[in-house]
């Protein structure tokens, strides 16, 4: 049937044949998917016609669902799972952390007991990605070839790796992890300006990021980045909930407190547009009391957090060796920048009105889709991104001190090597502890991994030369290799990640998900056959329109139309075999037509063209 699709030279195949490249903003509160079609950006919509896919994962005993219309009975619902990805049990702030079920922290990785199955935040996040993938492929009638997923610039190695692992588990091919502020800067299309310095202030639900970028002749270079990976709009909600609780002298248990917190989130959103908002807890059945809160009340609640973001911005400016005046544009990203108080604080602090004309919820996904399009090679746009590593990488040395190997804000990809030696005669192994952070003491930094370099040839103490190479790729993810240089023997490295999961665990999870996903696979095959059926119908119709009446006699024409209608009627049969048989039948009946078209088009090409062109 492929032969039916004869395209003019230089013209592309049928559009539905296309493979898609998408940008995914995997957010704390909501996730978005964007893709470029015919040069313009489309945001994927859910069944309620919303571009925001709530990052809410609900498990029941036998199913997983994504979104906010979840099963409330006998179910376990995860919100803001991004706050936990790639994190150690000890990093989690217990005061603002509400777990929907029991959890354990074996080997430092948080695992939730979901109906007797232990799940990590990586697996829970992968459900969101799986869902986005499914919705995209069903909407676009095609297959996702690759994607760009955004992460907060401040994400450390473990958090990046965990995000990538979640994507692998969901079956997505990640072209690049892109920092959210960088994505926003691309979305604003500032590349039309020849040279400028841009600051991106990104306050989302759970994270705060600040990045300073330098745009120069089609190259977007990140000069410095910083932020706080656990500061965001959710904290405003907690502050507001605490305020209501103390004002009304309520004494709530954890679950009621969570309801109040969700209510506070609604109040916060209302306060962006109104000076005064009535608080009425009857709605959520907590209290009969009613009172009114003003924007000023709310502003003074969040003032210290907003000041904290400005202080961080100042530090990042100083890291970039820039003054406030040298910034040409300030871009606001993230739903929390809708808060009027934040906008006015930024304007008065930097003495410059910030840009927010692109919807701050969408801007990151839009930027990611532009980058995905550039990476796919489909774009003619000459834009190159040079990003940096957000936190210094170091190793533990004597006295639990950190020796920095790659300083923060180094442009990636980058590498560095260090030489070590043995301190005992005949020593054959050596342990290396890698940490990430800016502090001097190992215990104040995040432990990323412990490596054991093995198979060192036995020599006198100090004679072995172990060269350890640290490589950071363009996604900001670290890999390590080691070599004994005096004998050139390649030693092996055993990795024990302190966070996240090891490669073998990922394999196991992938196998698991395949086993449990038989139904998914069948559904997928059915969808594929429907897509294929639709494609065949489209191409036969367009061929018939062009030359059907010229190349076919009446009976032949009718036979093809009948077979086509037969296939059309089978598309809703919910049976893959029936659809495939109908496709085959149509293909068989059209065979003569296909070969006549071939001959005709060859004749047409040969006519009127000099034979020399074919040399």
């Amino acid at each position, binding site marked *: 049937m492929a032969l039916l699709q004869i395209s003019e030279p230089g013209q592309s195949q049928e559009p539905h044949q296309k493979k898609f490249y998408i940008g995914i903003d995997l957010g704390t509160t909501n996730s978005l998917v964007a893709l470029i079609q015919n040069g313009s950006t489309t945001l994927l919509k859910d069944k309620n016609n919303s571009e925001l896919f709530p990052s809410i994962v609900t498990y029941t005993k036998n199913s997983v669902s994504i979104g906010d219309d979840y099963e409330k009975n006998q179910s376990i619902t995860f919100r803001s799972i991004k706050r936990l990805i790639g994190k150690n049990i000890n990093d989690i702030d217990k005061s603002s952390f509400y777990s929907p079920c029991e959890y354990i922290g074996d080997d430092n990785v948080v695992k939730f007991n979901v109906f007797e199955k232990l799940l990590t935040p990586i697996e829970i996040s992968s459900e969101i990605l799986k869902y986005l993938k499914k919705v995209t492929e069903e909407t676009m009638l095609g297959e996702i070839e*690759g994607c760009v997923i955004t992460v907060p610039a401040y994400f450390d190695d473990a958090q990046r790796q965990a995000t990538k692992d979640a994507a692998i588990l969901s079956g997505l091919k990640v072209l690049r992890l892109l920092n959210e502020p960088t994505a926003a800067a691309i979305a604003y299309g500032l590349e039309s300006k020849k040279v400028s310095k841009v600051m991106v202030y990104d306050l989302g639900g759970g994270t705060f990021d600040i990045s300073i970028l330098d745009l120069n002749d089609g190259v977007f270079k990140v000069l410095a980045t910083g932020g706080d990976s656990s500061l965001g709009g959710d904290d405003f909600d907690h502050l507001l909930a605490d305020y209501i609780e103390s004002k009304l002298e309520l004494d709530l248990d954890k679950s009621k407190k969570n309801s109040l917190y969700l209510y506070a989130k609604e109040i916060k959103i209302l306060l962006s547009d109104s000076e005064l908002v009535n608080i009425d807890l009857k709605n959520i059945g907590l209290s009969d009391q009613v009172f009114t809160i003003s924007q000023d009340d709310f502003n003074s609640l969040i003032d210290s957090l907003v000041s904290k973001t400005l202080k961080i911005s100042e530090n990042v400016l100083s890291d970039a060796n820039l003054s406030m005046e040298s910034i040409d544009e300030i871009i606001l990203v993230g739903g929390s920048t809708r808060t009027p108080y934040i906008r006015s604080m930024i304007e008065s602090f930097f003495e410059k009105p910030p840009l927010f004309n692109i919807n701050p919820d969408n801007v990151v996904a839009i930027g990611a889709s532009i980058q995905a399009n550039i990476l*796919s*090679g489909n774009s003619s746009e000459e834009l190159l991104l040079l990003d940096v590593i957000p936190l210094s990488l170091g190793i533990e040395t004597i006295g639990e001190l950190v020796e920095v190997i790659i300083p923060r804000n180094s442009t990636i990809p980058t*590498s560095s090597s260090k030489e070590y030696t043995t301190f005992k005669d005949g020593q054959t192994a050596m342990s290396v502890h890698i940490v990430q952070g800016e502090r001097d003491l190992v215990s104040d930094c995040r432990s990323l991994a412990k490596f054991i370099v093995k198979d060192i040839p036995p020599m006198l103490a100090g004679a072995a030369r172990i060269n350890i190479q640290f490589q950071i790729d363009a996604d900001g993810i670290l890999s390590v290799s080691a070599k004994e240089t005096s004998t050139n023997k390649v030693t092996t490295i055993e990795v024990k990640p302190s966070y996240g999961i090891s490669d073998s665990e990922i394999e196991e999870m992938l196998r698991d998900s395949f086993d449990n996903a038989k139904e998914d696979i069948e559904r997928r095959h059915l969808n594929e056959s429907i897509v294929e059926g639709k494609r065949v119908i489209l191409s036969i119709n367009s061929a018939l329109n062009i030359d059907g009446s010229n190349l076919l006699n009446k009976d032949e024409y009718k036979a093809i139309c009948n077979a086509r209608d037969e296939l059309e009627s089978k598309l809703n049969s919910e049976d893959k075999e029936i659809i495939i048989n109908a496709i085959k039948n149509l293909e068989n009946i059209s065979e003569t037509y296909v070969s006549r078209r071939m001959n005709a088009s060859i004749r047409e090409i040969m006519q009127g063209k000099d034979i020399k062109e074919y040399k």
Partner: protein
Amino acid sequence: MSIDFNQNYFQLFEIECSVLIDHEVLEKKYLSFQKTFHPDKYVNGSDQEKRISLQITSYINEAYQTLKNDYLKSIYLLKIKGFEVDDQNNTISDPEFLMHQMELREESEEIQLKQDVKSNENFISKIRSLKEGCLENFEKNYNESLYDEASNKIKEMKFYTSIENDFKRNL
């Protein structure tokens, strides 16, 4: 796709091997390298292409960052001359400089207590001009092949950088 990894960083960027370099040329060359070799250009390439692009851009970034930073560049210049600066052992034995070090530390603490924006700015620009003077002295020593003296200037540079960073961190 290849570059010669045996060239030194100055040769790589085709700039003269000296303390003061033309940053505009460096920047231009750097961007053109990135546009050619960056892994983003090989997303759909073979594994080998991806690996080579990663190695080349890592090397280019390392080289660029070394030449951009006066302290790293100075160490590198001495390395080319076969003179290794012990980065870890940065004790300065000159008693006069030790006195100066202590005085500056005290001054920085006093200014920090004042919490005055203007005094903070003044102190930072004072440190920066001391650092610049240091680089000038390094250049002089380097050009006269006085590598021991030049190496001491590098240690002084390191001290000024660390006092500036500490000061800014505690603001």
